[in-house]
């Protein structure tokens, strides 16, 4: 960490944050829960510069239900998600992801804004947000823009967020009757980064016919990816075991993961089939209640 923190600013409002971002020269780093950036800083992977602490900004907290959408402030933590009955009912994939991540101490600090901005292909909220069709709201002194989450990422750790912008909130469309699930495999039961993950959110008819479905995969490509071929396969068909297995195989055949210290490409590819099939199976279980 030595040397990377040249100074720390603590704006009192989002407006002050944005004007600070607009005026600053050189490297700047937002500090939310700190659970990613502090680890990177300690490894010398953060360019020396100005740190801006956004954690105290209550304007960025809160889960708000509107008729057509749910808004989540950038500072909403994984613990906040885990404690929200609304999100458990209506954004189950996200709830699952936050429930599974890290451990209590991490979830108390880990924000959704940080998880998204960190842009790891293994970030657990991200496939869930893909499956929920989330929109990311970026704001700067120049104004606010809404970016569909899938358009946010350009590579591992890379996003379209401009240096003077901050994530202010995420919004999720409210879809009546949607069911969702997120599943992941890690190297141990807690405090593990996903080796492979899958999220699915769908509306299912009474006979389990897929009316609409979004499926996303984590940790198998440079960014989290949708699985459009799987979604097409499922559209209009009843979720029965044969179809779910086929969907899993199709998802696996569409990815080219890598081998690293956490897992191998062979294992990751094979497991895509398992987690996709199992995520779909839990949609069925949840639809049946």
């Amino acid at each position, binding site marked *: 960490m*030595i040397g990377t923190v040249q100074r720390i600013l603590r704006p009192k409002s989002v407006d002050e944050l944005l004007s600070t971002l607009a005026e600053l020269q050189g490297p700047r780093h937002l500090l939310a829960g700190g659970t990613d950036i502090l*680890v990177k800083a300690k490894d010398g992977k953060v360019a020396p510069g100005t740190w801006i602490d956004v954690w105290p900004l209550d304007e960025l907290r809160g889960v708000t239900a509107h008729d057509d959408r749910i808004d989540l402030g950038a500072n909403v933590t994984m613990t906040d998600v885990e404690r929200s009955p609304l999100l458990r009912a209506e954004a189950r994939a996200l709830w699952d992801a936050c429930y599974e991540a890290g451990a209590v101490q991490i979830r108390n600090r880990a924000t959704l804004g940080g998880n998204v901005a960190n842009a790891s292909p293994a970030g657990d909220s991200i496939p869930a947000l893909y499956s929920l069709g989330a929109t990311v709201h970026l704001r700067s002194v120049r104004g606010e823009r809404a970016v569909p989450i899938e358009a946010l990422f350009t590579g591992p750790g890379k996003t379209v967020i401009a240096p003077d912008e901050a994530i202010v909130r995420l919004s999720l469309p409210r879809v009546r009757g949607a069911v969702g699930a997120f599943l992941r*495999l890690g*190297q141990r*039961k807690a405090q593990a980064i996903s080796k492979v993950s899958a999220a699915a959110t769908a509306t299912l008819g009474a006979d389990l016919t897929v009316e609409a479905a979004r499926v996303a995969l984590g940790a198998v490509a440079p960014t989290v990816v949708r699985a459009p071929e799987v979604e097409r396969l499922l559209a209009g068909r009843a979720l029965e075991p044969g179809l779910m297995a086929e969907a899993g195989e199709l998802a696996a055949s569409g990815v080219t993961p890598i081998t690293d210290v956490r897992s191998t490409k062979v*294992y990751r590819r*094979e497991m895509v089939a398992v987690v996709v099939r199992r995520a779909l199976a839990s949609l069925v279980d949840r639809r049946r209640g």
Partner: protein
Amino acid sequence: MPGSGPTYPLATMPPDDPTPTPTHTVGQRLERLDARAKVLGTARYADDLTFPGLLHLKVVFSTQPHARVLAIRTDAARRAPGVRAVLTAKDCPGENLIPLVLPDLTLMAADRVRFVGDPVAAVVADTPEAAHDAARLVEVDYEPLPAVFDVLEALRPGAPVVAPPISGPAGHGGANTAPNLFNLLEVKKGDLAAGFEAADVVVEQEYRTPYQAHAYLETQGMTCVPEPDGVFAVYGCMQCPFYVHEAVARVLGVPRHRVKVIQVGTGGGFGGKEDVPSIIAGLAALGAWHTGRPVKLVLSRKEDFETMSKRHPALVRLKVGAKEDGTLTALEEQLWLDGGAYATLSPVVLYRAVTHAAGPYRWPAVHVTGHAVATNKVPCGAFRGFGTLQVIFALESILDELAERLGIDPLDLRLKNAVRVGDALGTNQALTESVGFIETLERAAEVSGYREKRERYRTWQEGPKRRGVGLGCLLYGVGLGAKGKFIDRTGAHVQLYPDGSCAVSIGNAEMGQGLRTVISQIAAEELGLEFSKVQTFDGDTSRVPDSGPTVASRATVMAGNAVRDACGQIRRELRAEAGLMLGVEPDALEVFQTWVRVKAAPERRVAMNDVIARAAHARRALTASGFRLPADTWWSDDEGQGKAYEVYTYATNVCEVEVDVETGESRVIALTAAHDIGRAINPTLAEGQIEGGALQGLGFALTEEVHIDQGVIKNPRFATYIIPTAMDSPELKAVIVEHPYSGGPYGAKGIGEPPIMGIAPAVTNAIKAATGARLFECPATPERVTEAMKAQGVAARDEVAV
């Protein structure tokens, strides 16, 4: 009253009396002395210590696996702000050497680096930040040399020479006589050919075990303080204050009385603080020598991971034979331990490996050949188990293979061949007492429900989940044994105060295992004191004689015996005094709990407190030094036989696992571990050792892996080096079996290491029972389990073969 003579005449010294029984502190579940401070965060560790004028040291480590050092440019670093000194090998006032088994480990590499992580320079500065920044300005010119990373390649003719032949002091555990071969040892018993001839079934297999990092919570750290009288005081975390003492004296080139080593805190050791703290202390001392100021060196987690010792990876080729009825007939093993760049402790790790290779079983014929090999990787040294996990993984795996081929249950195969008193081990050592192996087998099986579960899980299936139970057994030679006996002794100093309280100093280290508590219990028992009246202090080399290392599960036995020796001397004084008080001969008295009483008339007694007060007033010697040697052991390299260790701890682990056959993930549901430890001085602490060791063993079995590429460690952090968390901990059942050892205090044997040793095969044997797939290598990651299932034709969704 000044000037007045002795009030009480001194009686002659009576002989010592036997151990009091029943005991009032030994065997009790007393709270660990350090528990509160550790839970409350008030315990002090190496980095908590500070001294006026303290400077900070940063090490510049080699970035090359093997290279000639052409030049070390330090000018820019020297000119950097806050820098007080930049030191290299040539700045050692004494020898540039860490004395261990073989004299090959340099404090700082001089002309050649042997691994990525060899220290080449040290920067001493006013702040850790200044030292860190300046260290980056040190430039080293390397001429890369061919490197070797594999044990078999390292032994081929023409391989790059990592470690040239060198020999150690005679009798000191080993000599490498060929390039890259730190040691070659054999164990030979009986007629091997005849043994295999007599076998109905022979199984032959190759096994591999991985590196393991100690993952102690406290990284290595030392501070050296130059004192005004010319003494260098060293404070830090360590297992072996006397190793550090010798190393610092030799590096500084001063006599040993100019060095004082005080062991503090020590947040975990597990063997990882046996040899390498001498390097850390040597560097801090060098900094203190050159600047005249206190110098602290604390490694970052990453530095610690990359440069400090590890468990030896191993390659084991094993062949065993048995008769149809399960009687074992022969064992042949070839073993290669990857020692890394310097010998450090490899020669003696190999000794323990080969002497434990045949396990707690009766074998008429044994031939084990072990090699400790040099490669251009991080040096491997001591790690809880010390070379045994490797051979136990192979042996306990192959016994299950054999059982399967014979159609005998693995438990029955072990029961049939288990050693008892009167049998001889694979080393031909005759076992004369304290052999509780069979009882551990029986108790572990009973407590875990082994037999019913074995039956039930044959067809158990819940979706993709399968269950199985597996066994892993072991024996462990307590203490340093024949190859370490030249340093195997212990001292203690016990001082009783007139108010009936007592200070104990020992030469062995508390590192979280509870040694100070156990020693206080023993002293309280011996002197008839309440437990709360005894304080055992952190080790200080100026107060107690060289007590050898705190390793090899030896401290309770060795330090416990030394304390008993000292207490026995004081007790004779106390009985003499009590004799005067009760008007009987001291011989007629015994210490019973906190009283001294007449043996023949127990109601005639005096409180120990009163005895102590009067004895103190009478100016009796209520302080004594104790000293003990272990029972004798011997080893013949030529015969490959000997009395390798004085006594053995025995254990049986039963692991119950649930495997998801689609993902290959294994969840350990329950782990039962039965250990014959002779006598539990403190059953709670013994269980703590068993549980902690089991969990560390589960890490080795399932998740822990060091990824090394061209000598570079790719996962030097806890995010990617995966140790078990509380969430990964199964139900742990510790079962204590007590077959007392006459040479141990109150019958005790060692328990520090055995708990980790047999876990991995218990897990992989259970995985095999659950899935039908055998792992020949650990850790049993989901990647390996799914691969093994594919390779061995066990399909994920099929019924598991019964």
